[in-house]
């Protein structure tokens, strides 16, 4: 086995030998299941007439868009979870001083970081599958009971599911890049939460006000991710926003991951381990 593959195997064992990855997976599943189930019931209820539109259901998305919207919650809402897993995989090494044995076992630090990026990309995909089990599994079930076609037979739906898994994998890689750039665990968690829950949504909304900023706004990571997946509640809330092609969105997200990781490697990863 090559040194790089050995390092990937070591990084894989690091993730599976602590509890954080399945705690995150469990919370992600619960969160997305409740959200997808609840909103499927709400919008499904409005469309089937079980809930009167006077009760606030007037803004319900058109029936044809509903399944894609619900399924995309996996990534458009759930993406913060792979970012946290990726970031914690790096900041934990700094916090618990495990960089010492890591670099003693493998002194080639670039190889270790590349292996970590690869490994967390894989775990991001696993979280993507978990999130989709919640959004598609629960969402389709609830929509079905309200008579909304969950369109599970359509290839477009499965393309969206596949692109969502890719998006979640890329988000975990972005988390690795962020973690290596800001090794302080608390600072990283604050940045992840503030950026994903507050700053970026505001920036995306604000960028739609003028044509010039809209061109820039679609390169924000969340916008790129939604473009990759192909649907999100954001594109319905702000229908005028311009979006990238799905593959462009994927490349932009990949670029975030790689650029953050490379800068982090240069700034913190090569430093003295004391």
């Amino acid at each position, binding site marked *: *086995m090559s*040194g790089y593959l*050995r*390092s990937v*195997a*070591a990084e894989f*064992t*690091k993730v599976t*030998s*602590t*509890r*954080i990855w399945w705690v995150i997976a469990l919370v992600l599943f619960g969160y997305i299941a409740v959200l997808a189930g609840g909103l499927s019931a709400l919008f499904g209820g409005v469309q089937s007439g079980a809930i009167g539109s006077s009760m606030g259901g007037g803004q319900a998305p058109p029936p044809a868009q509903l399944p894609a919207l619900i399924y995309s919650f996996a990534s458009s809402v759930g993406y913060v979870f792979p970012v946290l897993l990726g970031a914690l995989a790096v900041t*934990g090494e700094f916090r*618990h*001083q*495990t*960089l*010492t*044995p*890591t*670099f*003693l*076992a*493998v*002194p*080639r630090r670039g190889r*270790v970081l590349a292996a970590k990026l690869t490994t967390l990309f894989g775990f991001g995909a696993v979280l993507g599958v978990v999130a989709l089990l919640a959004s598609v599994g629960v969402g389709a079930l609830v929509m079905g009971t309200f008579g909304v076609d969950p369109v599970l037979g359509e290839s477009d739906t499965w393309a969206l599911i596949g692109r969502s898994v890719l998006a979640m994998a890329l988000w975990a890689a972005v988390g690795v890049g962020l973690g290596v750039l800001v090794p302080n665990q608390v600072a990283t968690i604050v940045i992840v939460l503030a950026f994903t829950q507050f700053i970026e949504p505001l920036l995306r909304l604000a960028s739609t006000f003028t044509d010039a900023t809209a061109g820039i706004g679609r390169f924000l990571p969340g916008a790129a991710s939604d473009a990759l997946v192909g649907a999100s509640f954001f594109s319905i809330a702000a229908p005028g926003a311009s979006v990238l092609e799905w593959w462009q969105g994927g490349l932009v997200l990949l670029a975030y991951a790689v650029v953050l990781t490379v800068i982090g490697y240069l700034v913190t990863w090569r430093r*003295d*381990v*004391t």
Partner: protein
Amino acid sequence: MPAGSVVEFANVTKRFGAVTAVDDLSFTVEPGRVTGFLGPNGAGKTTSLRMLLGLVTPTAGTATFGGVRYADLSHPLATVGSALEAASFHPGRTARNHLRVYAIGAGLPPTRVGEVLQTVGLTEYADRRVGGYSLGMRQRLGLAFALIGDPGVLVLDEPINGLDPEGIKWIRGFLRELAGEGRTVLVSSHLLSEVQQSVDDVVIIARGRLVHRGPLSSLETETAPQVVVDSPTREALAAALTDAGIRFTEGRTGLLAADPDPARIGHVAFAAGVELSTLHRQKSGLEDSFLALVGEGHTL
């Protein structure tokens, strides 16, 4: 087991901003012997060892194993095993998994994990999370990590710290055994007494500089023996010693006379009619030589 190689520090310097932590340090450590790397806290021991292990980049100079830098070793854990002072464990990971992670990364057979856990006596606790470990158990796990590649060189930073008396006895014997097999063993400590029963050679540093190196026995002759003497009338005693031409310094528990013979000091006092309250040869042990070398004053 690969043969032990010579550890060599060649003009190693490390500066952190304006502070020089290690200053032009040069020495070699030979295989088949236990070498104590000694100095007070803050002398630069840990920084030196971290430079040797490629974790800290020297400002100048090189530290090598048989002429090869750590970063260039083809099989690092199978060449050099090290246990550093810091508790480098993820508290949520079991001891067995901790060792597995690094064995996998270094390409070592997974069977080594169980073997080294057995060697350090942690088999019973191997599947508990390290967060619940005592300091002594963490030291043992650190040692297990050092041994996992069956290396020819062992670099241990303060390995005795935190061990219970039984553990201390065990590790002393173990270090002798490792050196007996032809391995190079470098052990740091801030207390000579902690390691003097197990080391053959000493390398002593203070304020980042080498102050002494040689066999342990070389410390015994470093300082001349002295006599501690005191009197209820210390001024009279001091005058008598001065009259007799005996040099002395004043200590906390009496005068420290630069003369190896208590009988002669007693005679001087008797002749001058000075009553004595204390008269004995100072136990000029290794520890005193050590403290004199590192500049922490004498121990009266």
